[in-house]
Protein backbone atom coordinates (compact mmCIF):
# COMPACT_ATOMS: atom_id res chain seq x y z
CA UNK A 1 0.00 0.00 0.00
CA UNK A 2 2.80 2.36 0.96
CA UNK A 3 4.55 1.59 -2.32
CA UNK A 4 1.39 2.32 -4.28
CA UNK A 5 1.09 5.63 -2.47
CA UNK A 6 4.73 6.43 -3.23
CA UNK A 7 4.21 5.68 -6.91
CA UNK A 8 1.13 7.89 -6.94
CA UNK A 9 3.09 10.73 -5.37
CA UNK A 10 5.84 10.32 -7.95
CA UNK A 11 3.26 10.37 -10.75
CA UNK A 12 1.69 13.48 -9.25
CA UNK A 13 5.09 15.17 -9.08
CA UNK A 14 5.78 14.24 -12.71
CA UNK A 15 2.39 15.58 -13.78
CA UNK A 16 3.06 18.85 -11.93
CA UNK A 17 6.49 19.09 -13.53
CA UNK A 18 4.86 18.56 -16.91
CA UNK A 19 2.36 21.34 -16.25
CA UNK A 20 5.11 23.63 -15.07
CA UNK A 21 7.01 22.96 -18.28
CA UNK A 22 3.93 23.69 -20.40
CA UNK A 23 3.30 26.91 -18.55
CA UNK A 24 6.85 28.19 -18.29
CA UNK A 25 8.07 27.52 -21.79
CA UNK A 26 8.09 30.50 -24.13
CA UNK A 27 4.75 31.46 -25.66
CA UNK A 28 3.95 30.46 -29.20
CA UNK A 29 6.26 32.02 -31.79
CA UNK A 30 3.37 33.83 -33.43
CA UNK A 31 3.36 36.09 -30.41
CA UNK A 32 7.09 36.69 -30.42
CA UNK A 33 6.70 40.42 -30.97
CA UNK A 34 4.58 40.62 -27.86
CA UNK A 35 5.51 40.84 -24.22
CA UNK A 36 7.00 37.59 -23.03
CA UNK A 37 5.35 36.07 -20.02
CA UNK A 38 7.81 35.54 -17.22
CA UNK A 39 7.05 32.95 -14.60
CA UNK A 40 3.46 31.93 -14.05
CA UNK A 41 2.16 35.45 -13.68
CA UNK A 42 -0.95 34.97 -15.79
CA UNK A 43 -3.79 37.39 -15.48
CA UNK A 44 -3.65 40.96 -14.29
CA UNK A 45 -6.04 43.88 -14.60
CA UNK A 46 -7.92 44.28 -17.86
CA UNK A 47 -10.92 46.01 -19.36
CA UNK A 48 -13.08 44.30 -21.96
CA UNK A 49 -16.69 44.73 -23.06
CA UNK A 50 -19.54 42.79 -21.47
CA UNK A 51 -22.61 41.37 -23.15
CA UNK A 52 -24.45 44.51 -21.90
CA UNK A 53 -22.17 46.53 -24.24
CA UNK A 54 -20.62 48.26 -21.22
CA UNK A 55 -16.95 48.15 -20.24
CA UNK A 56 -16.17 45.15 -18.06
CA UNK A 57 -13.34 45.65 -15.58
CA UNK A 58 -11.46 42.64 -14.23
CA UNK A 59 -12.03 44.11 -10.78
CA UNK A 60 -15.49 42.53 -11.02
CA UNK A 61 -13.78 39.13 -10.88
CA UNK A 62 -11.90 39.99 -7.68
CA UNK A 63 -12.61 37.99 -4.54
CA UNK A 64 -13.98 34.91 -6.25
CA UNK A 65 -12.17 32.04 -7.99
CA UNK A 66 -12.65 31.85 -11.73
CA UNK A 67 -12.07 29.67 -14.77
CA UNK A 68 -11.30 31.54 -17.98
CA UNK A 69 -11.55 30.15 -21.49
CA UNK A 70 -10.84 31.86 -24.80
CA UNK A 71 -12.77 30.90 -27.96
CA UNK A 72 -15.24 32.16 -30.51
CA UNK A 73 -18.97 31.74 -30.94
CA UNK A 74 -18.75 30.45 -34.53
CA UNK A 75 -16.82 27.49 -33.12
CA UNK A 76 -19.26 24.57 -33.24
CA UNK A 77 -17.26 21.94 -31.39
CA UNK A 78 -14.53 22.63 -28.83
CA UNK A 79 -15.84 25.95 -27.43
CA UNK A 80 -19.39 24.90 -26.56
CA UNK A 81 -18.10 21.51 -25.39
CA UNK A 82 -15.62 23.15 -23.01
CA UNK A 83 -18.11 25.65 -21.58
CA UNK A 84 -20.82 23.01 -21.19
CA UNK A 85 -18.28 20.86 -19.37
CA UNK A 86 -17.23 23.64 -17.00
CA UNK A 87 -20.86 24.34 -16.12
CA UNK A 88 -21.49 20.62 -15.63
CA UNK A 89 -18.42 20.17 -13.41
CA UNK A 90 -19.34 23.24 -11.35
CA UNK A 91 -22.64 21.48 -10.63
CA UNK A 92 -20.84 18.23 -9.79
CA UNK A 93 -18.54 20.08 -7.43
CA UNK A 94 -21.68 20.81 -5.41
CA UNK A 95 -20.67 24.20 -4.04
CA UNK A 96 -23.23 26.18 -5.99
CA UNK A 97 -23.09 28.38 -9.04
CA UNK A 98 -21.58 31.08 -6.87
CA UNK A 99 -18.49 28.98 -6.04
CA UNK A 100 -16.49 30.22 -9.03
CA UNK A 101 -17.07 32.29 -12.13
CA UNK A 102 -16.81 30.85 -15.62
CA UNK A 103 -15.44 33.51 -17.95
CA UNK A 104 -15.47 33.28 -21.73
CA UNK A 105 -13.42 35.75 -23.79
CA UNK A 106 -13.90 35.91 -27.55
CA UNK A 107 -10.72 35.78 -29.65
CA UNK A 108 -12.88 36.75 -32.63
CA UNK A 109 -13.94 40.32 -31.77
CA UNK A 110 -14.47 41.06 -35.47
CA UNK A 111 -17.49 38.73 -35.54
CA UNK A 112 -18.32 38.49 -31.84
CA UNK A 113 -19.99 41.67 -30.68
CA UNK A 114 -21.71 41.93 -27.27
CA UNK A 115 -24.98 40.50 -28.64
CA UNK A 116 -23.09 37.59 -30.10
CA UNK A 117 -21.20 36.65 -26.92
CA UNK A 118 -24.44 37.13 -24.94
CA UNK A 119 -25.68 33.89 -26.54
CA UNK A 120 -22.91 32.07 -24.66
CA UNK A 121 -24.03 33.43 -21.27
CA UNK A 122 -27.21 31.43 -21.15
CA UNK A 123 -26.63 28.51 -23.52
CA UNK A 124 -25.02 26.06 -21.12
CA UNK A 125 -27.48 25.66 -18.26
CA UNK A 126 -25.60 27.86 -15.78
CA UNK A 127 -24.21 31.37 -15.67
CA UNK A 128 -21.20 32.26 -17.81
CA UNK A 129 -19.61 35.72 -18.07
CA UNK A 130 -19.03 36.26 -21.79
CA UNK A 131 -16.72 39.08 -22.86
CA UNK A 132 -15.47 40.66 -26.03
CA UNK A 133 -13.79 43.96 -26.81
CA UNK A 134 -11.91 45.86 -29.45
CA UNK A 135 -9.26 43.79 -31.26
CA UNK A 136 -6.60 45.76 -29.36
CA UNK A 137 -8.25 45.07 -25.99
CA UNK A 138 -8.59 41.37 -26.79
CA UNK A 139 -4.96 41.19 -27.94
CA UNK A 140 -3.78 42.68 -24.68
CA UNK A 141 -5.80 40.21 -22.60
CA UNK A 142 -4.61 37.29 -24.73
CA UNK A 143 -1.02 38.26 -23.89
CA UNK A 144 -1.83 38.55 -20.20
CA UNK A 145 -3.21 35.02 -20.20
CA UNK A 146 -0.68 33.48 -22.60
CA UNK A 147 -3.32 32.73 -25.22
CA UNK A 148 -2.56 32.12 -28.88
CA UNK A 149 -5.11 32.69 -31.61
CA UNK A 150 -4.96 33.20 -35.33
CA UNK A 151 -7.54 33.61 -38.08
CA UNK A 152 -7.34 30.99 -40.82
CA UNK A 153 -9.14 31.79 -44.09
CA UNK A 154 -11.62 29.27 -45.43
CA UNK A 155 -12.93 28.84 -48.94
CA UNK A 156 -15.72 31.27 -49.72
CA UNK A 157 -14.22 34.21 -47.84
CA UNK A 158 -15.07 33.03 -44.35
CA UNK A 159 -12.52 32.09 -41.74
CA UNK A 160 -12.01 29.91 -38.69
CA UNK A 161 -9.85 30.68 -35.68
CA UNK A 162 -7.08 28.50 -34.32
CA UNK A 163 -6.79 29.14 -30.61
CA UNK A 164 -5.52 27.88 -27.30
CA UNK A 165 -8.15 25.48 -26.01
CA UNK A 166 -6.77 25.27 -22.48
CA UNK A 167 -8.81 26.88 -19.72
CA UNK A 168 -6.98 28.63 -16.87
CA UNK A 169 -8.00 28.48 -13.22
CA UNK A 170 -7.52 31.27 -10.68
CA UNK A 171 -8.13 31.28 -6.93
CA UNK A 172 -10.03 33.95 -4.99
CA UNK A 173 -6.87 36.07 -4.79
CA UNK A 174 -6.85 36.01 -8.62
CA UNK A 175 -3.64 33.97 -8.47
CA UNK A 176 -3.13 31.46 -11.26
CA UNK A 177 -3.47 27.89 -9.96
CA UNK A 178 -3.84 25.35 -12.78
CA UNK A 179 -4.98 24.67 -16.31
CA UNK A 180 -7.67 22.41 -17.76
CA UNK A 181 -6.96 20.61 -21.00
CA UNK A 182 -9.92 19.69 -23.22
CA UNK A 183 -8.66 16.11 -23.34
CA UNK A 184 -8.25 15.74 -19.59
CA UNK A 185 -10.54 13.42 -17.63
CA UNK A 186 -13.19 14.86 -15.30
CA UNK A 187 -11.68 13.54 -12.04
CA UNK A 188 -8.42 15.56 -12.09
CA UNK A 189 -10.37 18.61 -13.26
CA UNK A 190 -12.72 18.28 -10.29
CA UNK A 191 -9.67 18.09 -8.01
CA UNK A 192 -8.39 21.36 -9.42
CA UNK A 193 -11.80 23.02 -9.06
CA UNK A 194 -11.83 21.80 -5.46
CA UNK A 195 -8.43 23.46 -4.95
CA UNK A 196 -9.43 26.86 -6.29
CA UNK A 197 -12.66 26.89 -4.30
CA UNK A 198 -11.36 25.57 -0.97
Amino acid sequence: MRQVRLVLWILTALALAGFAFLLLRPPYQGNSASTQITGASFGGPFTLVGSDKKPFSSSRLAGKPYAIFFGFTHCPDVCPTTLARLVKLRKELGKGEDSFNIVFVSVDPERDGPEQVATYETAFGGPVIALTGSPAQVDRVKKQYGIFSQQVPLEGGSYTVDHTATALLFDRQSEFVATISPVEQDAPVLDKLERITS
Partner: protein
Amino acid sequence: MALPHFSMMKRGLALAAFVLLASCNGPGGPPAIALEDGWARATSAGQTSSAVYLTIANRGGEDRLVSVSSPLGEASIHSTTIEDGVMRMRPLETLEIPANFVVELEPHGTHIMVAGLDSPVEAGEMIPLTLDFERSGERQISARARPAHGAGM
Protein backbone atom coordinates in the same frame (compact mmCIF):
# COMPACT_ATOMS: atom_id res chain seq x y z
CA MET B 1 -7.24 12.70 -43.16
CA ALA B 2 -7.11 12.92 -39.39
CA LEU B 3 -5.68 9.91 -37.63
CA PRO B 4 -8.42 7.74 -36.16
CA HIS B 5 -8.93 7.97 -32.43
CA PHE B 6 -7.34 5.11 -30.48
CA SER B 7 -10.61 3.75 -29.08
CA MET B 8 -12.04 4.02 -32.58
CA MET B 9 -9.12 1.99 -33.88
CA LYS B 10 -9.71 -0.68 -31.27
CA ARG B 11 -13.36 -0.92 -32.19
CA GLY B 12 -12.38 -0.87 -35.80
CA LEU B 13 -9.88 -3.68 -35.35
CA ALA B 14 -12.33 -5.79 -33.37
CA LEU B 15 -14.98 -5.29 -35.98
CA ALA B 16 -12.48 -5.98 -38.73
CA ALA B 17 -11.50 -9.28 -37.13
CA PHE B 18 -15.14 -10.25 -36.69
CA VAL B 19 -16.17 -9.35 -40.19
CA LEU B 20 -13.14 -10.94 -41.79
CA LEU B 21 -13.86 -14.20 -39.96
CA ALA B 22 -17.54 -14.00 -40.77
CA SER B 23 -17.44 -13.07 -44.40
CA CYS B 24 -13.88 -12.87 -45.73
CA ASN B 25 -14.97 -9.63 -47.31
CA GLY B 26 -11.86 -7.86 -48.61
CA PRO B 27 -11.28 -4.10 -48.81
CA GLY B 28 -12.22 -4.10 -52.47
CA GLY B 29 -15.62 -5.65 -51.87
CA PRO B 30 -18.84 -3.66 -51.71
CA PRO B 31 -19.09 -1.35 -48.72
CA ALA B 32 -21.90 -1.85 -46.21
CA ILE B 33 -22.43 1.51 -44.56
CA ALA B 34 -24.71 2.08 -41.59
CA LEU B 35 -25.20 5.51 -40.01
CA GLU B 36 -25.88 5.32 -36.27
CA ASP B 37 -26.31 7.48 -33.18
CA GLY B 38 -26.58 10.83 -34.93
CA TRP B 39 -26.86 13.80 -32.58
CA ALA B 40 -26.22 17.49 -32.67
CA ARG B 41 -25.75 20.29 -30.21
CA ALA B 42 -28.75 22.59 -29.72
CA THR B 43 -28.00 26.24 -30.35
CA SER B 44 -29.32 29.39 -28.72
CA ALA B 45 -30.54 32.52 -30.47
CA GLY B 46 -27.73 34.18 -32.37
CA GLN B 47 -25.53 31.10 -32.66
CA THR B 48 -25.32 30.28 -36.34
CA SER B 49 -23.47 26.98 -36.37
CA SER B 50 -23.82 23.59 -34.78
CA ALA B 51 -21.90 20.34 -34.96
CA VAL B 52 -23.37 16.97 -35.84
CA TYR B 53 -21.81 13.79 -34.51
CA LEU B 54 -22.52 10.24 -35.62
CA THR B 55 -21.05 6.80 -36.08
CA ILE B 56 -20.35 5.52 -39.57
CA ALA B 57 -20.09 1.74 -39.35
CA ASN B 58 -18.77 0.04 -42.43
CA ARG B 59 -19.12 -3.72 -42.46
CA GLY B 60 -17.88 -4.04 -46.01
CA GLY B 61 -15.23 -2.76 -48.38
CA GLU B 62 -13.63 0.67 -48.25
CA ASP B 63 -15.57 3.79 -49.10
CA ARG B 64 -15.20 7.52 -48.84
CA LEU B 65 -17.51 10.28 -47.66
CA VAL B 66 -17.29 12.89 -50.40
CA SER B 67 -19.90 15.47 -49.43
CA VAL B 68 -22.54 16.34 -46.86
CA SER B 69 -25.56 18.58 -47.08
CA SER B 70 -28.45 19.74 -44.93
CA PRO B 71 -31.53 21.80 -45.73
CA LEU B 72 -30.93 23.78 -42.51
CA GLY B 73 -27.61 25.30 -43.49
CA GLU B 74 -24.26 24.87 -45.11
CA ALA B 75 -22.85 21.49 -44.08
CA SER B 76 -19.20 20.55 -44.25
CA ILE B 77 -16.88 17.90 -42.84
CA HIS B 78 -14.39 19.25 -40.31
CA SER B 79 -11.51 17.81 -38.42
CA THR B 80 -10.53 19.14 -35.03
CA THR B 81 -7.03 18.65 -33.70
CA ILE B 82 -5.60 19.82 -30.42
CA GLU B 83 -1.83 20.08 -30.45
CA ASP B 84 0.28 21.91 -27.87
CA GLY B 85 -2.96 23.14 -26.37
CA VAL B 86 -4.03 24.84 -29.59
CA MET B 87 -7.30 23.82 -31.23
CA ARG B 88 -7.33 23.80 -35.01
CA MET B 89 -10.44 23.13 -37.03
CA ARG B 90 -10.04 22.42 -40.73
CA PRO B 91 -12.49 21.54 -43.48
CA LEU B 92 -11.95 18.05 -44.89
CA GLU B 93 -12.52 17.52 -48.60
CA THR B 94 -13.32 13.86 -48.03
CA LEU B 95 -13.32 11.39 -45.17
CA GLU B 96 -11.90 7.92 -45.73
CA ILE B 97 -14.10 5.08 -44.51
CA PRO B 98 -11.76 2.07 -44.37
CA ALA B 99 -13.04 -1.45 -44.99
CA ASN B 100 -14.61 -3.11 -41.95
CA PHE B 101 -14.19 -0.06 -39.81
CA VAL B 102 -16.21 2.12 -37.48
CA VAL B 103 -15.53 5.82 -37.92
CA GLU B 104 -16.79 7.86 -34.99
CA LEU B 105 -17.50 11.54 -35.38
CA GLU B 106 -17.35 12.89 -31.83
CA PRO B 107 -16.64 16.06 -29.85
CA HIS B 108 -13.03 17.23 -30.17
CA GLY B 109 -12.67 15.12 -33.29
CA THR B 110 -14.08 14.96 -36.76
CA HIS B 111 -17.58 16.40 -37.00
CA ILE B 112 -20.05 17.73 -39.53
CA MET B 113 -20.49 21.45 -39.12
CA VAL B 114 -23.78 22.99 -40.14
CA ALA B 115 -23.17 26.73 -40.54
CA GLY B 116 -25.43 29.61 -41.51
CA LEU B 117 -28.39 28.41 -39.44
CA ASP B 118 -31.29 30.81 -39.87
CA SER B 119 -32.89 29.99 -36.55
CA PRO B 120 -31.78 28.26 -33.37
CA VAL B 121 -31.87 24.48 -33.25
CA GLU B 122 -33.98 23.62 -30.20
CA ALA B 123 -33.24 20.57 -28.08
CA GLY B 124 -35.22 17.66 -29.49
CA GLU B 125 -35.30 19.11 -32.98
CA MET B 126 -33.96 16.96 -35.80
CA ILE B 127 -31.24 18.08 -38.19
CA PRO B 128 -31.65 16.18 -41.47
CA LEU B 129 -28.41 15.36 -43.24
CA THR B 130 -27.53 13.72 -46.52
CA LEU B 131 -24.15 12.03 -46.66
CA ASP B 132 -22.83 11.24 -50.11
CA PHE B 133 -20.44 8.30 -50.30
CA GLU B 134 -18.25 7.59 -53.29
CA ARG B 135 -19.36 3.99 -53.60
CA SER B 136 -22.47 3.68 -51.43
CA GLY B 137 -24.17 6.79 -52.79
CA GLU B 138 -26.42 9.04 -50.77
CA ARG B 139 -27.50 8.15 -47.25
CA GLN B 140 -29.84 10.10 -44.99
CA ILE B 141 -29.70 10.55 -41.25
CA SER B 142 -31.52 12.80 -38.81
CA ALA B 143 -29.51 14.02 -35.87
CA ARG B 144 -31.49 14.88 -32.76
CA ALA B 145 -30.34 18.06 -31.02
CA ARG B 146 -29.32 17.62 -27.40
CA PRO B 147 -29.44 20.50 -24.93
CA ALA B 148 -26.16 22.42 -25.18
CA HIS B 149 -25.56 22.05 -21.44
CA GLY B 150 -26.01 18.31 -21.48
CA ALA B 151 -24.07 17.60 -24.64
CA GLY B 152 -20.51 16.60 -25.14
CA MET B 153 -17.69 14.83 -23.43
